[in-house]
């Protein structure tokens, strides 16, 4: 084990030795080293978050044919620091009648739920927080804390808009969790493990899991966008209806925490898309050079899918709440579970044979084709009904 092949474990082993040399026992030394490692990881996430504010503002400006921040520093790169200073010195207002404890706890929980996800992201073969054997359940569970923080914020703000926004968010988040879990189940089934490192290692360099199951990727992407509450599923903070939704009464740094949490959440889900469907840190054997190269590959992939989520956000208009729920419960959930059944059967029947990947791919294509045909026939039926009703109204007149 040298610095080049495994930098972090090398440093942590050295640090642990230093602590033990000071007379600590092994358990305490390990816990302290973990603490240092977690501080490093979380600080990295927060610095990345500051950078993401700039990325988001710059990219949205490009999508809307503007320049974006360009005054502070080269390309406006120091804009987020100015934003932070502004947020820090803004007055913190607690509305009358608010439940103060929950009101203050909600932004903390919102940020924590996102940071918790970073514990299981594998950046490189030997660079990850912890390799849990139930990582996928942990992903869903940590995401639920985010939902909890939203309803805490909405309920404690003592504001009708906030309450409405939080109810919408909770309806949306819990609904879209079902197809998301089904898509994760498809990946778990193909990898045969729930651990994040195991899932990445199960994907061959040339055939990551999106080749196995492109439909699962689509379902995961859609439900991840809904889970993040980004457009077209941003009903929770619809500006034209309920102004800002659950964080309407928050000012200063508390609002900043919600905002930063949302951006970091999007990036983290970009990372999970890269991890589950695009081979995580693997890139044609390049990751074997050094864990640092692996981490750069992983972050580049995560950034790409973060960009895809932004692309969707700034292209598609918001959908109505009944459409949003109907789309999930009447279309996405049945489709996801049918996909799960088909994948389970095909995967088990073709296990170990060379036909596994083509079989899964073709079964996915057939499923997509059948879905499109079904949607087309339904659309034709609805259109015929509407035309008939229009004609009958015209005939009566």
């Amino acid at each position: 084990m040298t610095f080049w092949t495994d930098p972090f474990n090398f440093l942590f082993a050295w640090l642990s030795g230093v602590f033990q040399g000071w007379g600590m026992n092994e358990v305490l030394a390990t816990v302290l080293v973990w603490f240092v490692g977690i501080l490093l990881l979380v600080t990295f996430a927060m610095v990345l978050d500051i950078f993401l504010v700039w990325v988001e503002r710059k990219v949205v400006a490009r999508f809307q044919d503007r320049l974006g921040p360009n005054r502070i520093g080269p390309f406006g790169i120091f804009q987020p620091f100015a934003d932070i200073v502004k947020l820090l010195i803004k007055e913190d207002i607690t509305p009358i009648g608010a439940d103060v404890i929950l009101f203050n706890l909600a932004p903390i929980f919102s940020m924590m739920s996102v940071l918790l996800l970073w514990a299981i992201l594998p950046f490189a073969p030997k660079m990850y927080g912890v390799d849990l054997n139930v990582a996928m359940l942990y992903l869903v569970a940590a995401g639920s804390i985010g939902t909890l923080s939203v309803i805490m914020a909405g309920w404690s703000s003592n504001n009708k808009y906030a309450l409405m926004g939080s109810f919408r968010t909770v309806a949306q988040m819990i609904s879209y969790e079902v197809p998301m879990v089904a898509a994760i189940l498809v990946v778990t089934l193909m990898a045969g493990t729930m651990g994040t490192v195991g899932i990445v290692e199960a994907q061959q360099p040339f055939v990551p899991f999106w080749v196995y199951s492109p439909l699962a990727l689509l379902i995961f992407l859609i439900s991840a966008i809904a889970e993040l509450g980004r457009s077209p599923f941003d009903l929770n903070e619809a500006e034209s209806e309920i102004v800002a939704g659950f964080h309407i009464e928050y000012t200063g740094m508390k609002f900043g925490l919600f905002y930063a949490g949302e951006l970091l959440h999007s990036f983290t889900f970009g990372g999970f898309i890269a991890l589950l469907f695009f081979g995580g840190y693997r890139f044609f054997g390049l990751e074997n050079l050094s864990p640092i190269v692996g981490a750069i590959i992983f972050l580049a992939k995560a950034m790409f899918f973060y960009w895809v989520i932004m692309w969707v956000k700034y292209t598609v208009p918001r959908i109505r709440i009944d459409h949003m729920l109907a789309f999930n419960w009447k279309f996405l959930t049945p489709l996801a579970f049918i996909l799960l059944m088909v994948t389970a059967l095909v995967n088990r029947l073709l296990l170990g044979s060379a036909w596994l990947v083509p079989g899964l791919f073709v079964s996915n294509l057939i499923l997509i084709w059948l879905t499109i045909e079904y949607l087309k026939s339904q659309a034709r039926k609805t259109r015929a009904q509407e035309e008939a009703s229009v004609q009958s109204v015209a005939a009566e007149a």
Partner: protein
Amino acid sequence: MQNPWIYVGLFMIVGMLIPIAALVVARLLAPRKPNAIKQSTYECGIETVGDNWVQFKAQYYIFGLVFLVFDVETVFLFPWAVSLNKLPLFAVFEGIIFILILLAGLAYAWKKGMLEWV
């Protein structure tokens, strides 16, 4: 390697400390001059009428119930998915029947009109 959940617990503590630190810094730097108008509930410029904790649509509750069924059942599906490749083919069909029962519940809710937004 020691218990990984100690690591997760530590992560949770650090994950809470970082936002708390940000809030403490804001508390030290930000001015505080509260008054009644500033602290009043925001409602697009008009005075709030009545209680703010209002009755909400029962539909949200129904969707919560439908979700609960699925969420509990997916927990059972995870062990099945992990060990599927080591189990006999029979287990696959068992799992499929389980999912079909789950979908029958969804179909029932659909038929009863619980999924309509009224």
